[in-house]
């Protein structure tokens, strides 16, 4: 009847009647650590399978010497982009290289889209002429730009005539050689 049930559930009591401060528990809850562990696992699972380099396909036009077999382009629908040194791009429209204007890789998108808007989609052609000072990165970026802006017809051309090269040099000097 006067039994005191001191056993069962909860902590151990030192002894009846001993009033002591709470004994701090030494048990660490490892749940957050396990969460972290699994997060790291999933991270590694995803990154090891996803880090594969991608490839950009390039189709080169056949070298044709006969002028009648070359693709006919309307001069007014052509935008020529010349890639110079120090990530500079010089562009002109149509046949007139004297109106050479400088731009950079960020602004060139607006230039392309602007020209695209003003021309028939069937006729719009972008001619890419990298110079000897253009870096490989520039070339790949401009080709990527063609895909981003959905330009259907573009050509990578090797020859930059001495006349155009002079114009580039003059434009560089006018804007301060960088």
């Amino acid at each position, binding site marked *: 009847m006067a039994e005191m049930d001191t056993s*069962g*559930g909860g902590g151990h009591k030192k002894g009846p009647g001993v009033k002591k401060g709470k004994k701090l528990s030494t*048990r660490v*809850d*490892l*749940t957050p*650590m*396990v969460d972290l*562990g*699994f997060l*790291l*696992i999933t991270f*590694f*699972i995803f*990154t*090891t399978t996803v880090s*594969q*380099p*991608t*490839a*950009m*396909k*390039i*189709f*080169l*036009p*056949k*070298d044709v010497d006969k002028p009648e077999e070359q693709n006919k382009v309307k001069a007014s629908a052509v935008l020529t982009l010349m*890639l110079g040194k120090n990530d500079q791009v010089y562009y002109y429209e149509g046949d007139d290289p004297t109106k050479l204007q400088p731009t950079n890789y960020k602004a060139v*998108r607006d230039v392309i*889209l602007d020209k695209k808007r003003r021309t028939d989609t069937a006729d719009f052609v972008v001619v890419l002429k*990298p*110079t*000897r*000072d*253009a*870096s*490989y*990165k*520039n*070339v*790949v*970026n401009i*080709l*990527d730009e063609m*895909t*981003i*802006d*959905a330009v259907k017809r573009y050509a990578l051309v*090797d020859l930059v005539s001495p006349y155009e090269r002079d114009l580039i040099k003059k434009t560089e000097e006018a804007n301060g050689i960088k």
Partner: protein
Amino acid sequence: MPKVKLPRKSTNIDMTAMCDVAFLLLSFFILTAKFKPSDALTVSTPSSVQTKIAPEKDVVMITIDKDNKVYMSISDGNRNQKQDVIDAVNTSQGLKLSDLQKANFVKKAGSYIGVPFSQMASYLNHSPDELKGIQIAGIPVDSAHNELTTWIAACKSAFQGTHMNLIVKGDNAATYPSFQGVKNAFIKNDEMKFQVVTNPVSVPVGTELYKKNMASGSKAVN
């Protein structure tokens, strides 16, 4: 009232075991992460929005490093083709390579060609691991003297029947003339299609390509 003592069990689960398993799994995945055979040629490729994965089999890879040096390698799984290529070039250029030298190219993983024909014999005396620190001249690709044309022609005949994946892996800092030389070697061999290795980046928001992707749902654009 009958004293019914419900046996009270502790509800605290000991998480130590679970933690052990988690870290074991983690270590497993870290260690089995595929490490690409460390290329002797470090190239930082430019980025592009392309989503097609670069091929890894039946690959002839032309590497252009930041000093505009051109190297050629063939994927390790294509030993027969490697053998054919080195034999063809040996006979056509009269290099008189010994079997050991040929084996250094054919049998060793990650081997690549990086010297003009004149230096081939001494170059092939070393295995790819020995070559890691040494500076080599690269294959000449200038318009006057483009040796890559011969190499590509040999690859083309070696890969007859199977599809050959021509890929170009160039460094950001390489300049256009070396790429032009590589391009000309392809054109001379009538190889008009090739692929350029890039890092994937996401399509910038608001551009034409982005809108096209959104319109066609999750279909990959190429």
